[in-house]
């Protein structure tokens, strides 16, 4: 998995590409978790180019979600591909997450 970060105002945008699975999810959780160390972090993870998520990926997302809650941060995903969205739905993750259709929506919501 390839991970890039951008800063848009006070929001970190993480652009992930590839598979979020047993090979990549620990590094993903660690790298993205590091962005939640600021005070009042705002984090948007763009999943437009993530085409594959396994339970290891779900574990990473849950870790990030728990950390964001613990530090009172804002954490959202955007641009989920349909098969990835299905996995989040089946696992009961969707109600716990803030999911935006596209990056501009996520950025607008996190700026507010």
């Amino acid at each position: 998995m390839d991970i890039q970060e951008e800063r848009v105002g006070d929001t970190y945008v993480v652009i992930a590409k590839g598979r979020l699975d047993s090979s990549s999810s620990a590094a993903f959780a660690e790298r993205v978790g590091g962005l939640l160390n600021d005070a009042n972090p705002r984090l948007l993870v763009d999943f437009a180019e993530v085409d594959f998520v396994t339970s290891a990926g779900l574990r990473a997302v849950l870790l990030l979600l728990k950390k964001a809650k613990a530090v009172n941060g804002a954490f959202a995903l955007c641009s989920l591909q349909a098969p990835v969205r299905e996995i989040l739905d089946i696992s009961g993750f969707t109600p716990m997450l803030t999911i935006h259709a596209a990056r501009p929506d996520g950025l607008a919501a996190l700026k507010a």
Partner: protein
Amino acid sequence: MPLEMEVLATPEAIDALMDRIMGFMQDERVDQRTAHNVALIVEELVVNLGSHGSCRDRPAKIKLSVEPGSVNGEIRDSGPAFDLTKVADPDINLPVEDRPIGGLGLFLVRKLTTSLQYSQLNGENLTSFAVTRRLGVDVKD
């Protein structure tokens, strides 16, 4: 022609396995959703064998075949006996704070397969599954 592979449950081998499975699914014109779910099922099963079985040093044998209505898979391994059909589901309605980390792999396998069977014979475990395909859709749908 079915896909047959032997794989150790190491990150590199699993990565290569996923590439191979996705390529095979595309060659066989399986729709994206089915291809994704088949690859996920295989990865979850192999990763599970790596942590609880013994497939870090003894490879698992994987066979996938694409039929008109479904993709069928078999995984044979020589690790400890483990009937994945008998594991309780996690509670997926818990709030964030109470959701435990982990435990979703076999749950996803059970949810995504149309059929799932386990048997053990002569020290070999056989896990077989089927995933119903969507027909008449483009591979990219």
